[in-house]
């Protein structure tokens, strides 16, 4: 695939900006020449038709939710409502400078405030911050809150975070960035936190636990109240990773399960688009114990007017340049308004129904390590399909069927894992098509394994050489070589 650097350039294109209407002077008269650039950056000048065609062509090499099922576990790749895209482009929302006085941004502030109220209600927790712009960012902010909490209580020994061995990689990474060490708690045979192991790990060096509910196996922690109860009794706090909120929207609240911090992934549960990797939004909701430490500025309502609140002396400070990903918040707010209470409940019902339907049908052909009703996602194993065939091969072959593969090799506690989350926006026809493809692939694994091993055959590129990319990283266009198509 060509890059813009491979496209034939022309001389300066012009036509975008008007001629200077102020007297022009030599740049060197205004800025000392030692500060000025000598060489031009090697960025081509291209006409609009060239650029338009280039990005149109690139887009066609991609697969998005609008193309079909995207059953990535714990990613909740649900449909991205079109109206939200339009609303986030309203000039009244996009044309506001973040340093504008609060009085000039009452519309946005009202929206952010109301969204915070709704998120607090969904979480069942009193304090909310919209500043974190990703789930991992929310996790980090939560860890900062833990740190400040224990500082305030003069408990510096509390430096350990417990997490289950099924935890998503960002959990231990976030804890580590915040200066905590991590201790893994094994899952029991039912895929849940081993309570005895938890008891053994709890002591006065534990700051808290990070849990995903339901966990990454799609299993709801039945002993959740016991788990959080034990951690609290030992003087620790409970962080809940909200990536899997789609499993119980409209039915349960993390605050009622013992959470002290809960992060939302607006780009998962609340339908905002994933964008090829972002921008997301990871607001946090916190319990009373942590409200005083929330980032500044907060969004407050004072006698019908919305203001930025800076008076929070024990705040951890700020984790974002401004107030979080505002335009992403706009989309989530619009989504919530459309759903209402009944819509939230309908979402989790269909999400869990879809997952269980797939699980029931696929367990006949694939190994299901935890054979029980799941929530919104479940994990299969690609083991035992055929000699020399791995989950990776199954995933690549799905591409030939026009479907995006599920998450593979995660969670780590299941070998050759395939983590599948259909979401509620998949119809039965698409679900059946997925089952059909998976069954055919299982048969191919036995009868014509080379089809899997050499897959994909029908994608814009064949299987890519990961080793070469990792061994000799080429991360920028090699201008000094001849460009190759």
């Amino acid at each position, binding site marked *: 695939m060509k890059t813009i650097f491979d496209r034939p350039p022309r001389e300066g294109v012009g036509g975008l900006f008007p001629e200077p209407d102020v007297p022009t002077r030599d740049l060197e008269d205004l800025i000392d020449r030692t500060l000025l650039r000598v060489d031009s950056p090697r960025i081509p000048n291209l006409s609009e038709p060239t650029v338009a065609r280039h990005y149109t062509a690139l887009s066609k090499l991609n697969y998005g939710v609008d193309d079909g099922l995207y059953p990535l576990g714990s990613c909740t790749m649900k449909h991205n409502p079109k109206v939200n895209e339009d609303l986030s482009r309203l000039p009244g929302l996009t044309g506001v400078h973040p340093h504008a006085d609060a009085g000039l941004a009452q519309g946005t502030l009202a929206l952010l405030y109301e969204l915070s109220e709704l998120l607090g209600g969904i979480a069942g927790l009193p304090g909310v911050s919209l500043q974190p712009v990703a789930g991992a960012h929310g996790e980090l902010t939560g860890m900062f809150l833990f740190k400040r909490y224990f500082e305030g209580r003069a408990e510096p020994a509390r430096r350990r975070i417990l997490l289950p061995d099924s935890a998503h990689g960002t959990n231990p990474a976030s804890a580590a960035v915040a200066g905590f060490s991590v201790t893994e708690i094994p899952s029991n045979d039912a895929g849940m936190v081993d309570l005895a192991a938890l008891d053994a790990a709890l002591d006065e060096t534990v700051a808290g636990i990070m849990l995903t509910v339901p966990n990454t196996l799609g299993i709801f922690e039945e002993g959740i109240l016991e788990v959080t109860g034990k951690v609290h009794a030992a003087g620790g706090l409970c962080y809940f990773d909200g990536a899997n909120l789609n499993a119980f929207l409209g039915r349960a609240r993390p605050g009622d399960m013992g959470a002290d911090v809960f992060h939302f992934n607006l780009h998962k549960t609340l339908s905002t688009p994933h964008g090829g990797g972002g921008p997301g939004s990871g607001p946090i909701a916190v319990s009373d114990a942590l409200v005083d430490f929330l980032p500044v500025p907060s969004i407050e309502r004072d006698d019908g007017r919305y203001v930025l609140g800076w008076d929070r002396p024990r705040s951890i400070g700020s984790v974002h340049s401004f107030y979080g990903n505002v335009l992403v918040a706009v989309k989530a707010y619009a989504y919530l308004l459309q759903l209402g209470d009944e819509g939230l409940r309908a979402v989790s019902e269909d999400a869990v129904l879809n997952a269980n339907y797939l699980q029931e049908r696929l367990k006949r052909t694939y190994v299901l390590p935890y054979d029980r009703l799941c929530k919104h996602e479940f994990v299969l194993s690609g083991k035992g399909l055929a000699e020399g065939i791995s989950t990776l091969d199954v995933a690549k072959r799905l591409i030939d069927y026009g479907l995006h593969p599920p998450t593979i*090799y995660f969670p780590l506690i299941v070998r050759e894992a395939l983590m599948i989350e259909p979401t509620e926006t998949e119809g039965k026809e698409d679900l059946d098509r997925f089952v059909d493809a998976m069954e055919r692939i299982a048969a191919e694994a036995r009868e014509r394994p080379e089809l899997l091993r050499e897959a994909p055959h029908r994608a814009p590129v064949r299987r890519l050489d*990961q*080793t070469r*990319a*990792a*061994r000799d990283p080429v991360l920028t266009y090699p201008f000094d070589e001849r460009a190759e198509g």
Partner: protein
Amino acid sequence: MGYPAEYRYTKDHEWVAVEGNRARIGITDHAQSELGDIVFVELPSIGSSVKAGEILATVESVKAVGDVLAPFDGTVVEVNGDLETSPETINQSVHDAGWIAVVEVDDPAAVGALLDAAGYESFLAEG
């Protein structure tokens, strides 16, 4: 692939070839096969001291990172610089040219406590 009879082995999948009071260390065939194509090796510095169980080096493949743990206390006296440009040597010649570091052992008796080839192979069979 067989495991050289004259080497010792650890349950963390390292092999040890004794050379007097020095030990040449690498990862076993099992380890390299689990990791896949090796793309990068982080070597220790010569002269650094290590304690048993601590990370001596790390070996990275495309999808995973393997910690090479020091099987005993000692001092690093040699490292395999070739691995910096050709990390794939570990995949190609895992028990030979793919050695990672040579450590001067504080207590030579510690080496004897490691598994022999037969012991390592039965350990693998259990897992």
